[in-house]
């Protein structure tokens, strides 16, 4: 147990160092000139040479990579993530405000895709070869091959433009002061991006659960349960669910990275002010501190998801839990 904790802390630190280093290297080799990108084309052309040099100094263009990284890393150890030059605010603050939006979006998508995918998977697996199975399978294959941003655009066209059920974008209504925004407003704006993200996330978990369901239905213990008088659905309910839920939950925790990746695209399409959108802004604007901050945050988030997936097996599965105790 102790070794497990130490090993995971070491892994986490190494991951953080690697992610931040890669972010810095990528930004430094990127062809984007932060000065040009941030002041705008017209202002840049009219700017005096001295002013440009001053801005370049401000953006740290001429400081060598290793020195910038060392400075940033030194500050990080003191808990200072630096200042976002693009948003002109501490990186920690930018991430905090954005993370609330993103987490609401991702949590909704994560839960909805998980529950929906699990249900569809069982439905398809239990009816293998029947029309309902083909429909679910076809739906999943279709979704798995549909790009997230395209689906987002289609949803925008159908639900926002044609039907007018949902707003076109943003997380709050336009022209309303922050104090007047109600929870209902926020949910109304959240719905469409969350739906897009959920629908895309369903395919993976549904296909996986379908395979597992077929395995479980062919297992000896379900056969035996049926010889004792349970119907197929009864056996599935009493013996299948707990055997299916564990791998599905693990998979769902491990798929947090995919939802995170999807959220970047979805936020961009829906102009939803979350972390993903901030990451795009930071990347295109050469805002290395913010980009590194977001990269660290998302890496930590995904690491957490995978860790939970790992630990979950040990906690929920009696074979692992009691087996480990017996060996300890």
């Amino acid at each position, binding site marked *: 147990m102790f070794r497990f904790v130490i090993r995971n802390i070491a892994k986490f630190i190494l991951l953080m160092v690697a992610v931040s280093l890669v972010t810095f290297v990528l930004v430094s080799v990127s062809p984007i000139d932060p000065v040009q990108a941030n002041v705008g084309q017209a202002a840049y052309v009219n700017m005096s040479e001295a002013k440009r040099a001053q801005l370049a100094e401000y953006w740290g263009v001429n400081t060598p990579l290793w020195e910038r990284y060392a400075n940033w890393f030194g500050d990080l150890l003191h808990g200072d993530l630096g200042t976002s030059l693009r948003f002109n605010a501490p990186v920690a603050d930018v991430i905090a405000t954005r993370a609330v939006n993103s987490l609401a979006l991702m949590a909704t998508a994560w839960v909805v895709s998980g529950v929906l995918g699990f249900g569809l998977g069982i439905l398809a697996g239990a009816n293998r*070869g029947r029309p309902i199975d083909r429909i679910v399978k076809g739906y999943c294959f279709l979704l798995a091959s549909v790009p997230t941003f395209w689906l987002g655009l289609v949803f925008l066209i159908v639900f926002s433009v044609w039907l007018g059920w949902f707003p076109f974008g943003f997380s709050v209504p336009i022209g309303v002061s922050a104090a007047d925004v109600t929870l209902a407003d926020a949910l109304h704006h959240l719905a469409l991006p969350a739906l897009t993200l959920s629908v895309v996330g369903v395919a993976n978990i549904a296909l996986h659960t379908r395979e597992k369901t077929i395995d479980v239905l062919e297992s*000896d*213990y379900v*056969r*035996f*349960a*049926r*010889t*004792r*008088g*349970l119907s197929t659905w*009864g056996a599935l309910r*009493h*013996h299948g669910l*707990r*055997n299916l839920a*564990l791998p599905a939950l693990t998979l769902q925790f491990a798929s947090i990275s995919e939802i995170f990746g999807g959220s970047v695209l979805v936020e961009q399409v829906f102009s939803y002010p979350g972390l993903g959108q901030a990451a795009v802004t930071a990347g295109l604007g050469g805002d290395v501190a913010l980009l590194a901050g977001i990269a660290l945050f998302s890496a930590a988030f995904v690491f957490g998801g995978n860790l939970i997936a790992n630990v979950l097996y040990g906690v929920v*599965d*009696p*074979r692992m839990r*009691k*087996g480990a105790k017996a060996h300890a």
Partner: protein
Amino acid sequence: MSETQKGAARAEETRAEQVPACGRAAELDALADTLFGGHEALEHADEQEHHHHTHAPASHHEHGHHLLQVEDLSVGFRMYDEDAPFFRARQRFVEVISSLTISVHAGEIVAVVGASGSGKTLLADAVLGLFEPNATVRGRIWFDGELQDAAGLAALRGNGVSLVPQSVNNLDPLMKVGRQVEGFAHPDVPHAERRRRRAELFERYGLSEETAQLYPFELSGGMARRVLLCCALMDDPHVIVADEPTPGLDLDLAVRALDDFRAFADAGGGVMLITHDIELALRVADRVAVFKDGTVVEETAVANFASPDTLAHPFSRALWHALPEHGFRDRNVGEGSGKGGFHA
């Protein structure tokens, strides 16, 4: 078997995916009655040989019929030809069990003895009404004197006929064994009642109350066997189908492990013991059904195995000669009946 009877069997062809309707079963019942003159309901306790089998002292025909009677059972599968190239493979029909007849009387253990992998488990599946989607099952099965259709067999599961499976793999790995023994298939019986009965059975079979709190992977081999038996007895069956219930035990231990089945039979139940071990069968069973190439070639009392002269089928006699005390005389016994061969 006469040609008319065979014709009747063919007329009754039922596919697993097309469970025959009750009305049709009743019709068939009537048909069987006219053909056999209501034979199934007749008193025939004292006949020396009937239904192609001889009786043991323990066998008796309660209410004048067999507890379980299987006649002319065939199980086949539609499958793709394995030898043909992938894209040219055609579907063909493989009959794994053909015209099998076997009876289980009250008070007896019938051992179905055959080579491993020769399809004995399919017999258990058919009796329990568990059919694969690509299976075609034909034949007649009576339970307690009543002709059953697929729905009838399904209704008898855990409700007259119980299975004792081979290993602990037949238990849900994520559920405590106590809860599993109590089962879920009888929602009309209050759970407290089921739990009381489970505790009673555990006590009778020397399983401590703590065992109920264990998960299947924590059971020893002996505990697992008793837990599986308790699962079956929980439902108060008339017939137990035991599919290789003593894997990996040597003969003496296996015989002792089967004492519980003996007790069940002595109390008036019937046991169909499926095994590959002829020595075990001769020690614990009352009658032996010799299973070869998908059918029962001879169904006879254990006493008839005393000498080859009382055995009717050449394969049974070969089996007799292959027993260790008769000097393993025929080395070709296992041949032609699938992989594995006989234990003897």
